[in-house]
């Protein structure tokens, strides 16, 4: 166990309060700022035991980093940046790092509400899941129902969901409930490689595999009645949650630019503690090119989730024999939790443009913020937190405190507890599937039983513990708890 105020393994941890800890700035490691970890004691000890704090320290060495290298309570060991890491860099003197966004650019979560409740579906869950499974392209190497030409893909990358809506996917109003209204500015296809284009043409509207999923969930508990009303949610109501990202297109964009930035780091004299942290100044030609390509991948990811939502609507229409409008299948919100964005934040009393990297972290904007939909102006931005397939997921709300404490950021999920190989050794996918059904009535459909074992609830931290930290630290606020009824995995 880590003792605060003592130097353990060459770094010193100071307790700020029960939910916030400081890794003291140590120039020996080249730290330019301290580290800040939002965690309770148990989560902190876990992070320290797996050397994740070393990764928080490594990020603190990067040029132009402001205030601190942050870690959210779902922090776990990644490669380069920790998963659950947040770092903001000055737009003029700071860097942008593809590794600080990750390979699955704009991996994120979309939620749809319905006007159904548990009673409407509980006896027919298996049938609905079968129809969804048939309608949703998923699994390793899955190809979509949409095959795009290069020109069509270029339009999609520039326009985001505007392209999808124009082509008959989704509703016009959906875009108001997506970060950046479904189209990230600055997307420039000139900076995307032909390899990324090749990989992107066949995968629009595919769920993929790994930790990506589609779930039917029920509202299990409401913490904030007024907020739940604004979200259009009440107890036992059915919602749909879609978790996926930019597929091979985003992976290729990230790979291309990590390679470019191996050279940039040398060119700009940036010392790297880990080669995966490769970066270039935000204002450099390399930095701008990456930003333009990354924005394309963000647009790809939101269109991907948008098309999946379209097919969810189609499946529900077919099953219930009613239009998706009549079924109330509106978008609650869509968040990206692997992204870098230029945002304005208060730094030492001055508003500055900064490049905020969120790698496994979610934007958490407060009530009244100009970038959140009018519908939610009074409650704050919905923050969608997927948990694990056996316990809970949450909808949180952004707070003013997140703006001052964490560059408007909070956690993104439960965070891994067990390595994939350990999960596979200890858990049988088929037994897990049976147990979830027998004990909790959860219907699980998965393409791979080994893949399912890796995503078992016990392989993850308890998401309730994680969101409680963000709630008590004040960087997001609990609104609604959701529990899974049906789980679709790639």
């Amino acid at each position, binding site marked *: 166990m880590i003792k605060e105020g003592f130097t353990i393994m060459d770094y010193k941890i100071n307790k700020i309060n029960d939910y916030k800890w400081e890794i003291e700035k140590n120039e020996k490691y080249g730290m330019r700022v301290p580290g800040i970890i939002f965690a309770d004691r148990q989560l902190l000890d876990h992070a320290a035991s797996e050397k994740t704090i070393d990764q928080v320290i490594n990020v603190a060495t990067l040029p132009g980093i402001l205030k601190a290298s942050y870690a959210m309570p779902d922090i776990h060991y990644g490669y380069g940046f920790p*998963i659950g890491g947040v770092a903001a860099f000055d737009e003029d003197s700071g860097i942008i790092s593809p590794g600080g966004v990750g390979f699955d650019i704009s991996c994120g979560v979309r939620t749809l509400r319905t006007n159904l409740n548990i009673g409407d579906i509980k006896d027919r869950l298996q049938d609905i899941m079968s129809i969804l499974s048939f309608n949703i392209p998923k699994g390793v190497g899955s190809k979509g129902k949409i095959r795009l030409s290069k020109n069509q893909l270029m339009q999609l990358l520039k326009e985001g969901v505007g392209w999808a809506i124009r082509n008959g996917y989704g509703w016009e109003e959906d875009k108001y409930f997506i970060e950046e209204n479904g189209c990230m500015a600055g997307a420039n296809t000139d900076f995307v490689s032909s390899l990324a284009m090749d990989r992107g043409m066949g995968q629009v509207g595919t769920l993929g595999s790994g930790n990506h999923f589609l779930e039917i969930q029920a509202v299990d508990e409401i913490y904030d009645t007024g907020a739940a009303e604004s979200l259009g949610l009440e107890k036992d109501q059915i919602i749909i949650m879609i978790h996926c990202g930019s597929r091979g297109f985003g992976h290729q964009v990230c790979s291309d630019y990590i390679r470019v930035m191996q050279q940039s780091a040398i060119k700009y004299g940036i010392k790297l503690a880990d080669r995966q942290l490769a970066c270039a100044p935000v204002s450099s030609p390399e930095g701008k090119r990456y930003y333009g390509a990354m924005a394309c991948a963000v647009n790809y990811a939101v269109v991907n989730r948008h098309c999946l939502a379209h097919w969810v609507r189609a499946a529900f229409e077919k099953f219930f024999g009613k239009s998706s409008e009549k079924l109330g299948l509106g978008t609650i919100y869509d968040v990206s939790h692997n992204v870098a964005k230029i945002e304005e934040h208060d730094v030492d009393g001055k508003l500055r443009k900064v490049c905020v990297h969120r790698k496994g972290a979610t934007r958490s904007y407060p009530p009244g913020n100009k970038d959140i939909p009018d519908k939610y102006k009074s409650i704050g931005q919905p923050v969608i937190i997927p948990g694990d397939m056996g316990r809970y997921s949450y909808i949180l709300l952004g707070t003013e405190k997140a703006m001052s404490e964490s560059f408007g950021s909070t956690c993104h999920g439960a965070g891994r507890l067990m390595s994939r190989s350990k999960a596979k050794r200890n858990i049988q996918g088929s037994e897990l599937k049976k147990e979830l059904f027998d004990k909790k009535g959860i219907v699980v459909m998965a393409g791979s039983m080994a*893949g399912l074992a890796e995503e078992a609830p016990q392989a993850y931290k308890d998401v309730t513990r994680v969101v409680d930290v963000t709630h008590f630290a004040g960087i997001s606020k609990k609104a609604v708890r959701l529990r899974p009824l049906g789980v679709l995995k790639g």
Partner: protein
Amino acid sequence: MNSKKVGKKYKYIDHLSDIGIEFYGKKLEELFENAAVGMFSIMCDLELVKPQEKRNIKISQKDSCYEDLLVLWLERLLYLYEVDDVLFSEFKVGGVHKKGRNLVLTAEISGEKIDLNKHKIKIAIKAPTYHMLEIKRDDRYCDWKGRIIFDV
């Protein structure tokens, strides 16, 4: 374990979020081949993949080291797997050599069109990473040894 004696090509390394391999080779060419075998073995059982479809690959990278070339090589294999729908199981690296300022690799690779019923793919790999990436000579067990972590 003496990898040279038992002819071990690679072994898995545990990583919390992702998965890695350590791989071996008497020559650099073999090292690159075994890294590819290790990567595709993470994705599926290679014994089920027939070497029917052939591709020739030539990659080159300026001002780079063996590690950089390795990442590029594995990325290119993932690209071909994804775009052509082919799982690869046999890799013959013809050469890894310097040409001016470039490091060049040529290879012939073979595999089979993906058949989801037959191949039972275990997991998708997003990309090879530079985290903990290493290639070095290891005289105790074999001549070359490498390590790479994949994002899965």
